[in-house]
């Protein structure tokens, strides 16, 4: 599997954020997108996720499921956690598992892996920022997607949480997945650096 972008141009609000960006990532590979604030890290992830339309260039996934589009094979973990405060932790997770579909794994086990099994019946409104992030990570585990697009994934996670997450990313890469992560902090795994928007 090979994710590649050729000459990608991103325009936001009439301003060119970056242009002529080339990138590649293969199975089992992690790419850390780095750059100063406003250099277009999040925009790049949203372009890959199909949530922004590139002003030029192409982004394609070779060797994936030919029946599915690129966004359908991606997990997008953004700044916002896509959690409903009125629903319990378990309800939030099983909703996304049911809605996203495809190969799925036991929601209870995913919650145990991210350390939220004791809070399964708690409404998500009462979760801390770190716990919300952990619950989002449980979504990545319950529903399997080959491409993970992570935007500042370790934000709000404590040290133990960051270690746990590094382990999860290593497992994902070992299964042949690929990771594109926008980050300021080190990911804690072997990764290639993609610098956009000049020097930090």
């Amino acid at each position: 599997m090979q994710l590649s972008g050729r000459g990608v141009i991103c325009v936001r609000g009439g301003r060119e954020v970056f242009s002529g960006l080339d990138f590649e990532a293969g199975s089992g590979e992690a790419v850390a997108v780095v750059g100063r604030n406003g250099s277009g890290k999040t925009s790049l992830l949203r372009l890959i996720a199909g949530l922004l339309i590139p002003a030029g260039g192409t982004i394609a996934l070779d060797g994936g499921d030919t029946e599915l589009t690129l966004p359908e094979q991606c997990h997008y973990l953004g700044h916002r956690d896509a959690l409903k405060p009125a629903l319990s932790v378990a309800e939030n997770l099983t909703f996304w598992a049911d809605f996203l579909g495809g190969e799925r794994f036991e929601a209870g086990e995913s919650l145990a892996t991210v350390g939220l099994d004791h809070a399964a019946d708690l409404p998500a409104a009462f979760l801390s920022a770190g716990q919300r992030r952990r619950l989002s990570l449980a979504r990545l585990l319950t529903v399997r997607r080959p491409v993970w697009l992570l935007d500042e994934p370790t934000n709000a996670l404590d040290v133990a949480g960051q270690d746990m997450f590094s382990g999860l990313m290593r497992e994902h890469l070992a299964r042949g997945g690929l990771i594109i992560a926008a980050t300021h902090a080190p990911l804690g795994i072997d990764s290639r650096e993609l610098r956009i928007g000049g020097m930090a």
Partner: protein
Amino acid sequence: MTALSALIRRDIRIALRVGGGALIGVLFFLTVVVLMPFAVGPDLALLSRLGPAILWLGALLASLLTLDRLFMADHEDGSLDLITMSRTPLELACAAKALAHWLAAGLPLIVATPVLGLLLNLDMVATGSVALTLLAGTPALTFTGMIGAALAVTLHRGGLLMAVLVLPLSIPVLIFGVAASQAAIVGPMTFGAPFSILCALSLVSLVIGPFAAAASLKHGLD
């Protein structure tokens, strides 16, 4: 199908929980209709003549009250991103969300109608015909209102814009809804003709609404 039923069940569950929109709509409907006799005065004949119009106006405003949040809430917490990316076509997801909204916020209004009919001195036939026209007409309000709700996300404006966009679209529904109710109560028109048009409006909006809303959401990606 699993995906759509999951989406419908989630939205209904959220609407029915504390802070959800279902109860707000019914309470608003109740307030408008209960206040009306105080404003109009104790003339029973006048009340029963205005009754269907009051119930329809109340239901219209109540169903629009919570509709502007239909996509806004999902947009704000990032759920809309994941829904857009998912394997479910956005049009179907929009239709499922509107259906869930109608089940949670529209249906309770119809259930409440017989009770409120008593306050407006409507007899059994009149109340029944208003409830029937609401049942046939409120889906049209939800499914056309959905277009406004999607535009509100795209244009980053909520509330007022939604009302300005959606209210003109709901005028035909209001006209034929009230006309059908009046026809059943006082005549001289037959009930069938305006009621058929009301059903047609609902069916048309069921088809157009999801596509228009999805097109708006896709166009407004950012």
